[in-house]
């Protein structure tokens, strides 16, 4: 038996797919082991085809393991008692395309034997939470991909689950939706819920996960707390207000002195992430009440989530505010700082900055180039600096190794 605070335990999981003749065609998982503790956000990472989805499907009882075992709340995944406490948002929205949002939530609510009034209350709260108030009567088949993802998220929360399993939760979502899901994940964790997140979008994972497991070829390559795994012990990062060129040169000299001539040194000014700017533009549009047929901005976590636990109820108000803060903070400041007419020019520049510096492939190349003795200073970037904010740089631009 796993300890009481272990929600999910995966032991030596191996899954082999065989073809018609019984020959091994794919080994999707190979001895995968990890466990998820109560109240943590656990990320399952890996490139396409690394076995993330297979692992999730075995955890949910949709596939049976070839070897190994899964224990959810100390029981088998196919147990009905377990299923009452689990919410699952699949990779794509596999929902009934002829039903509308209300009917879908009503159907899933019935499967949890929720009484009629309660079903209606939860459905309303969830539809509002995922921002589909205006599309609630439309068949899901007519939804855009992102809207379908939102209703997929809503159905996974109808039973106020203790364990939420999200398979690629942010694919297909617009930045607002992505932001909302991340905030929701954080506020659900704060309510004491456990979340298993499966993704290859590293930015999402890094922001919300407590611990991660990285899969490759069905095998576990890394497992541990995110901040421990991501600390680059051989690199030092310095953040400072804007420096004059002269000061910069002196700092570079000091660095060269202490590291020797061949160490890679890079100086640039941080760009505001495009995500922040995008959220700001959409927020303005919504403040002007422009009509949209699509998804609207959702509200934070629906009130019934967290169940009947009194302390959770008490904390909820606070949490809702906490969840809203990251949304508001980056938008308020730059609006004040930048004159309106400069917006277009700024956007162009921001886009350039967001795309130009170090996409992951380039980072790898630079890491390779680092072996060369040349010091690489990107003066062009320096010269272009127009804005300085105290925004942290996008996390995934750091080399991970």
């Amino acid at each position, binding site marked *: 038996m796993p300890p009481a605070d272990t929600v999910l335990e995966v032991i030596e999981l191996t899954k082999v797919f065989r073809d018609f003749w019984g020959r091994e065609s794919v080994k999707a998982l190979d001895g995968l082991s990890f466990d998820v503790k109560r109240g943590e956000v656990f990320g399952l990472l890996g490139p396409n085809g690394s076995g993330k989805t297979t692992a999730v499907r075995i955890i949910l009882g949709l596939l049976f393991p070839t070897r190994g075992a899964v224990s959810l709340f100390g029981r088998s995944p196919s147990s009905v008692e377990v*299923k009452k406490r689990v919410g699952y948002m699949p990779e794509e929205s596999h929902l009934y395309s002829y039903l509308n949002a209300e009917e879908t939530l009503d*159907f899933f609510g019935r*499967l949890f034997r929720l009484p009629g009034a309660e079903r209606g209350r939860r459905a309303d709260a969830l539809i509002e939470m995922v921002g589909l108030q205006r599309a609630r009567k439309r068949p899901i088949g007519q939804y855009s991909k992102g809207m379908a993802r939102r209703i997929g998220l809503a159905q996974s929360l109808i039973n106020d689950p203790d364990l939420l399993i999200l398979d690629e939760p942010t694919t297909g979502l617009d930045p607002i939706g992505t932001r909302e899901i991340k905030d929701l994940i954080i506020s659900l964790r704060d309510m004491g819920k456990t979340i298993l997140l499966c993704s290859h979008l590293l930015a999402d994972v890094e922001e919300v996960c407590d611990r991660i497991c990285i899969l490759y070829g069905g095998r576990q390559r890394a497992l541990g707390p995110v901040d421990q795994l991501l600390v680059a012990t051989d690199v030092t990062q310095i953040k400072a207000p804007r420096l004059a060129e002269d000061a910069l040169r002196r700092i570079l000299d000091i660095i060269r002195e202490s590291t020797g001539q061949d160490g890679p040194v890079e100086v640039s000014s941080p760009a505001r992430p495009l995500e922040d700017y995008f959220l700001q533009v959409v927020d303005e549009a919504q403040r002007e009440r422009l009509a949209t047929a699509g998804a609207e901005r959702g509200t934070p976590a629906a009130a019934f989530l967290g169940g009947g636990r009194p302390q959770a109820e008490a904390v909820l108000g606070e949490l809702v505010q906490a969840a809203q803060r990251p949304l508001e903070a980056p938008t308020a400041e730059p609006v004040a700082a930048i004159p309106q007419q400069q917006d277009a020019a700024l956007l162009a520049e921001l886009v350039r900055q967001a795309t130009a510096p170090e996409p992951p492939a380039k980072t790898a190349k630079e890491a390779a180039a680092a072996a060369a003795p040349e010091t690489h200073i990107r003066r062009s970037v320096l010269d272009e600096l127009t804005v300085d904010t105290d925004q942290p740089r996008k996390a995934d631009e750091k080399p991970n190794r």
Partner: protein
Amino acid sequence: MRSRIANLWRWVLQRVPEALLLVFVLSLAPLVALAVLEVYGQGMRFLASPAGYYEATRHDPWPALATAAAFLGTGVAAFILWRNWLHVWAVARKMILEALHRKIVLVLLIFFVVLTASLPFLKTEGSIKSRVQLVMSYSLVLAMVLLSLVAIFLSVASICSEIEHKQVHVTDTKPLRRWQFLLGKWFGVVVLCSAVLFVMAGASYGLVVALARPPDEARMDPRDAAKARQDYASLMEEVLVARRTVRSLVPPGIEEAVQERVKELEAQGKYPWEPGIRSRVRKGLADAELAARTAVPPGGMQVWKFEGLRPGREGQCFVRFKAYGSTFEGSVAGRWIVLQQQRVEASRGESQYPLVPVAVVVPPPTGWQTEVRREFTIPTRFVQPEGTLFLAFENLDQRATLTFDPEVRVEVMQKEQAFLPNYYRAVVVLLCHIALLAALGLMAGSLFSFPVAAFTVVFIFIVGLVGVWFASFLEPHALEEMNYTLTQQVLRMVWRGFVGGLLALMPHFGKYNPLGDLTDGKMVTWASVAYAWAVMVCIKGGLALLVGMFVYARRELARVIV
């Protein structure tokens, strides 16, 4: 305005599943009443004379057995439905809603209304009787075929497409057992299809009633009026009625004669060892014996006895017979004589009960046609108080000997009930077909992927329709087949076992088709309803559903089967 209509439509749509459930329950309520009445009747018969009841049951155990099986199966099913109601109804309701959103029901009803409305205008021989028969049988066949296809495709597609489009990945992670999921789907298909079936059958009944109006004689030529009146009377007496059929008793001594012939064959080493051929040989011998014993030579007479008729002062009994003449004339001269047992005081104080002629049925001027069923009527008052009737055929032909068909012999049909209960029972038998098809669809859907599953069930459906004809290939042609070599015999046994077994598992839609009897004004008996319900819904349908549940519960749902 438009959005108000849309809102209203949505409001209505949300309540349609419950409405269909209500229609379903209400339309089955009379069946429950009928079943209770039947059990009460059997109980009374048992109480009246336990020995007689035992004897009758031993002679024909099917009504009692089928009733028991139907009650048992339905009880078990109802109990399981009741215990799992919330889950089952959630799945069934979703299925119905989906079908409504896909406008399946709407298209179905439009098809039915358009086609049925055109039926009264089809060309018939002109009499109101044939018109009503045509409208009734065609509209019910239409409803049956449409709903069978809908039941097949709804059940197959709902399983296969949910697996293929991965909706089960979500549904299966909810606290719903997989067998509940399948049961819910079956129940949804059955509720939807049977509610629509009863609505269609109700429409068809309304059409029949509208057509079967008494002729407006005041506006007609007196000759036409007389014909129309006769036509109407024959409609009411021969179609819109439930008549019970009583077949003449087999003359005694046949079984013994067959036994003797079998012994002879065994002594000669000609009696086959294959059970199928044996029964066939015995039946052939019995038929030959019966035909020989009841053949009426020129100037001869054959008396047929009927038991279990309903005596009465009013009304008519319909007598039907089928016979073959020994000449090629196509007809035989002769007359039917109604006989009655009358008590005669004989000498020494003993009573005798000789048969005394009381009426004669005058033959048609051309004589009785042979090789087709002929029908005539006699007044019901000739049936004796204990329900017996004696009919004699006297052969007045100069040359031809008349041989009665051993299957039909002579039948007497009596009005037993009104038309509506009969119609209702026939529709219930059709419902059994649909319930079985839905179960088969779910089984195939859990075994195979979409096109294969759909083809499988459509194939089963077609074999079920022509199954009787198909099964006739399996019947050996009596005695001449005994000369097979051992290898041939073994191959035949294997083939017959395989195909015969398959046919036994498959539904026999032809065998249980009540529409022929219904349009002939014959009684669709409770026994046949109970038999269809027990065999098609409880046994075969239950088996198919269990196989489906077993396979589905053990399937890796996330694995794509190509």
